[in-house]
């Protein structure tokens, strides 16, 4: 099945110079199957109109396409469609939560938003393996409210060090924000243990699900998180679209950050009332074609089956890790057993940028740099690493081509 579905992704036939393409950079962005590309095009050919207004036929079709995206996403990750709010990207989704809490801390949103208010006696907890998108907004919130920012450290093996969990997440903790899967190490974090601790102290849980939703079965209701964020483009969908998922009661009391049209009930010259989620967080014209295309992407993933995708990528991860271990001078960052097909490593004596350039010359696309996780790289004593990350369309041949090219890197740069 997986060898067949590769044909659904036209871009994989691209030639890089004289080489075939082995795309191992899906952690950065995924490629799109033809059906997603078609939905995007067909939307503009057949259904384009303003959503949620106008009584004409096209407007109804456009609104249906837009709302079907919510349903597809809630079928995938749990809950009901009203819990799915569209944002520009996952970064914006995380900012909507952090900035909403900032507004609540400064008196916005009335009594029901009071639960989100932070002050100097409160703490915010993150982890040392966060993508900057789930770190910087919380730094900003701490700065704005005087709350203390704390973090769970990472072990040498690339897992969260939970030995001091109960003292780091304590009665002062108002928000516990962490990633489900590390975008660098590939580690799958024990969400249920972390959520259980958050519940003991009454902290809100914010989950960065960017690297989990595309690659494994995830149900936010089962995980009992309060808010979650992920992006469409890493899950076969288009760019320009993110998801903020939340518990309805919390979404409906979180002060919105972007305000204006399409998110209000009544407006007078001196004040406004806001709609409930999801429209509450969807001010202005929305990316309707992107949503329609993402609905197709989500249905495609569901049809293949996230459990099968997870198993397929686990197998590829094994090939990558076994192969890399055979190549002298390669140090893999982290060694978590519970992981997805993401492998980041340091090549002794060769900078990651040069590694990536060499691999590209052999048709192998990987990510190099700090992967928006500078503190994590500092933790491992490097400023940059090379990362290979798989997806459902990759095969063992991609991994082998990558390994063969990687073995040539140190000789090419004259490093013994």
């Amino acid at each position, binding site marked *: 099945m997986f060898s067949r579905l590769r044909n659904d992704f036209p871009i994989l036939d691209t030639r890089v110079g004289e080489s075939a393409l082995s795309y191992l950079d899906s952690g950065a962005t995924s490629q799109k199957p033809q059906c997603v590309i078609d939905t995007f095009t067909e939307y503009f050919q057949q259904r384009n109109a303003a959503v949620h207004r106008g009584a004409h036929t096209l407007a109804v079709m456009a609104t249906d396409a837009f709302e079907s995206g919510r349903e597809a996403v809630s079928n995938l990750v749990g809950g009901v469609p009203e819990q799915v709010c569209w944002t520009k990207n996952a970064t914006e989704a995380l900012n909507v939560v952090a900035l909403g809490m900032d507004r609540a801390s400064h008196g916005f949103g009335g009594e029901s938003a009071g639960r989100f208010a932070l002050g100097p006696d409160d703490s915010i907890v993150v982890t040392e393996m966060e993508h900057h998108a789930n770190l910087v907004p919380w730094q900003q919130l701490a700065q704005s409210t005087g709350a203390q920012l704390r973090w769970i450290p990472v072990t040498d093996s690339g897992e969260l060090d939970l030995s001091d969990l109960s003292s780091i997440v304590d009665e002062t903790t108002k928000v516990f924000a962490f990633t489900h899967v590390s975008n660098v190490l590939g580690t799958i974090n024990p969400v249920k243990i972390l959520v259980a601790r958050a519940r003991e102290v009454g902290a809100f849980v914010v989950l960065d699900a960017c690297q989990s939703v595309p690659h494994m079965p995830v149900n936010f209701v089962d995980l009992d998180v309060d808010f979650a964020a992920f992006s469409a483009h890493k899950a076969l969908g288009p760019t320009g679209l993110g998801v903020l998922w939340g518990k309805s009661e919390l979404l409906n009391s979180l002060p919105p950050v972007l305000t204006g049209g399409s998110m209000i009930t009544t407006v007078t010259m001196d004040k406004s009332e806001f709609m409930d989620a999801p429209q509450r967080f969807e001010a202005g014209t929305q990316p309707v074609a992107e949503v329609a295309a993402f609905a197709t992407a989500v249905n495609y993933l569901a049809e293949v089956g996230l459990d099968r995708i997870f198993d397929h990528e686990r197998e590829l991860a094994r090939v990558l890790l076994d192969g890399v271990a055979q190549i002298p001078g390669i140090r893999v960052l982290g060694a978590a057993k519970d992981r997805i097909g993401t492998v980041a490593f340091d090549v002794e004596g060769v900078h990651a*940028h*040069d590694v990536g350039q060499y691999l590209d010359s052999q048709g192998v696309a990987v990510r190099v740099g700090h992967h928006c996780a500078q503190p994590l790289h500092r933790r491992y004593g490097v400023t*940059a690493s090379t990362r290979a990350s798989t997806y459902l369309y990759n095969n063992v041949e991609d991994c082998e081509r990558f390994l063969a090219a990687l073995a040539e890197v140190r000789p090419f*740069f004259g490093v013994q």
Partner: protein
Amino acid sequence: MSTQMQQLYQQVILDHSRSRIGNQALLRDDATGAHGFSHQVNPTCGDEIELETELLDDGTIAVRWTGDGCSISMASASVLSELATEASVADMLDIEAKFHELMHSRGTLEADEEILGDAAAFTGVSKFPARIKCALLSWVAFKDALNQAQTSLEE
């Protein structure tokens, strides 16, 4: 090996990236001549350089730097330091301008080896848009630090 790769990673570049001229501890406020300091980061990849220029009595510029980055960025800083040991301030500003122009040429310019010396080896880099910033990182730091050194001289 593709010719593009050979053009990018000229032997001169690989050599400079391994044995780096000017890569030494900065004197900072212990510098006796007019001096300037610059810290430049390439935020997309985390490459980083701290570079110091000191105007010497013989009219040349001492360049000292520490950094962490790819072979292109480190070799570029090394070549720059070597050129500075034999050039006047006016020469170096001319070289900087020519190097900048070369890097943005997308491979359409012929490098003037007479003026650019080892820096001419970076011609191939200009065909790789993602690497131009690597080659220019130390030069941006150099220009900034030199500007400060000249300003402090005037004061």
